[in-house]
């Protein structure tokens, strides 16, 4: 039972780590409908300025703060430049996918040439201190990441539903043409989504830098998880947050009963099967023959939906 609890918590934390990046990617993708494949590479690349700044200024509070700011600025600038000067010029779905794959290759390998392919770690002993909560042992960093993830998820939800700006963003996600007609500045909303998403990605890059260490090739794996969770979330940032926690928990609970060696395979196979099953079920629902006679109160409902 203790092992179960421990795995559950570890899974939740792992899900939160991926979840920050997934929320960032989902924010970008739902708002702009651009498949930003360079997201993972840019997130990882943005953590490198943080590493350099901290190495140059020392790991005191000032150096750390400047490092984080440097990472955020780098991520936001690169992403907005990509959106404005590359993706917006292509105007179609498939070319954007291709171009962002190419950009991802470029960013990742430029970083590899500049900084080397080895793992870089920033160690803060205070963050690695182990806290015991009942039977579960966690590092301070992990607790911080989990709380940060919950705060980000709730904040995004409140922002989208309770503020005027957020409602404009939500309108841009739902129906860009109509949003433009009622006066939402959709192009600015897209820029804002890119900035916010890139900042979230940079944060997950920094977490990796402090936690497991950073190397250029990690970006693609991070991106794949974020992509799949985004597609599973179906246009709702709430379900993206829930799915990313579930993703971590399922991944972790797999090693409770089965070989941890097959963890990755199981995760990818489960995701593929879920997506296949979901779309087949949707089509079944869509094609189902509905009863011709039905109560009058439901007749209009289908047409409106």
């Amino acid at each position: 039972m203790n092992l179960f609890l421990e795995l559950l918590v570890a899974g939740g934390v792992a899900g939160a780590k991926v979840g920050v990046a997934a929320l960032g990617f989902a924010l970008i993708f739902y708002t702009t409908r651009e498949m930003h494949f360079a997201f993972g590479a840019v997130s990882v690349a943005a953590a490198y300025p943080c590493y350099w700044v901290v190495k140059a200024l020392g790991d005191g509070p000032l150096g750390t703060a400047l490092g984080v700011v440097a990472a955020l600025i780098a991520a936001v600038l690169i992403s907005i430049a990509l959106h404005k000067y590359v993706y917006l010029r292509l105007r179609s779905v498939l070319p954007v996918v291709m171009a962002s794959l190419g950009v991802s290759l470029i960013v990742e390998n430029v970083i590899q040439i500049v900084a080397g392919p080895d793992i870089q770690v920033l160690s803060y002993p205070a963050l690695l201190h182990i806290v015991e909560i009942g039977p579960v042992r966690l590092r301070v960093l992990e607790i911080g990441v989990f709380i940060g993830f919950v705060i980000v998820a709730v904040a995004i939800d409140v922002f989208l539903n309770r503020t005027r700006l957020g409602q404009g963003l939500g309108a841009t996600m739902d129906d860009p043409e109509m949003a433009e007609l009622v006066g939402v500045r959709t192009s600015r909303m897209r820029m804002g989504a890119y900035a916010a998403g890139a900042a979230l990605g940079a944060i997950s890059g920094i977490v990796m830098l402090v936690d497991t260490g950073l190397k250029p090739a990690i970006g693609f794996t991070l991106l794949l998880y974020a992509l799949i969770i985004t597609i599973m979330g179906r246009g709702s940032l709430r379900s993206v947050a829930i799915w990313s926690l579930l993703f971590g928990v399922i991944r972790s609970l797999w090693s409770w009963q089965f070989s941890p060696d097959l963890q990755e395979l199981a995760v990818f196979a489960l995701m593929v099967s879920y997506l296949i099953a979901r779309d087949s079920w949707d089509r079944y629902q869509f094609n189902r023959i509905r009863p011709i006679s039905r109560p009058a109160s439901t007749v209009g409902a289908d047409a409106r939906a």
Partner: protein
Amino acid sequence: MRFLMTTFMLMEVYAIVAMSLNLLLGVAGRFSAYEAALMGVGAYTAALLATKLGLSLFWGCVAGAAMGALIGTSFQIAARHMDFFTFNITSFAFQMALYETLLKWRGVTAGSFGIFNIPRPEIAGFSFTTLEAYLAFTTACAAVIMGLLLYIERSTFALALRGLRDGEKALQSLGKNTFALKLKVFAISGAATGFAGGLLAGLTRTIHPSMFFVYLSVILMVFVVAGGRGNLRGSVVAVFLLILLEQAITLIPGIPTSQIGALQRLFYGIVLVAVIMFRPNGLLPESPIFARARFPGIKPVEDGFAFLGRTRSRESTL
């Protein structure tokens, strides 16, 4: 000389895969990102049959082609209701799942060690063990497959596939079974890819899963896009040119060996972005389907947002 021959054979193998991917991506407009893993499945099937059962590698390649076709069609059957983005992402996830299977199914694939000493084929008493003989074998196989693919490109079947790309609903209203068309093109493309994987296994004589990582899928896409989507001859030209340039990078003096791989991938990334931005139709653009067409070239793919929920998909279908 050995280096030149090996490079030439590598070009032939990649040319076959790039052409079959072009048939999917360019002609039929079906995105797929698991070509590398399909190649891996073909290579492993051929190598296992050759090493464990002592079969000739040629028949191993044929079995690999059958496996490739089987996996391609079964994935298409499973994913037939997906919209563009979901299919795209699911094919990436499928690539990772297949790669992990090759890596972790240690009882059969020997894990990350890979399979060694793959025997080269022997047909009718003539052994293709030396590099020169294997070059002849590969060239003959590649010529046959590329000829078939070029023939398919000119056929009315490919015309129907182009219709599938430009307007699936229009094609359906003309009475074509678009699902059968998709199955056929995935089978053809999967078979060619699997066969090429078998040829690769005989060429390198050792295979391990890291040869078939996602990067290879992306690089195959670079070949297709650079050569021209919808023009199979273009991808052959692109494969030959880009692999020449890629090998030229290794010959630049003064580069540390650890950076060569990164430089090569950087080169492919730059090529992909440059082609998409400045010459979107590729090196040899697809010729217009009808000679007097007013707007030749590739039309944008119909984008699907069915994943955003049922109400939206219903709107778009009505």
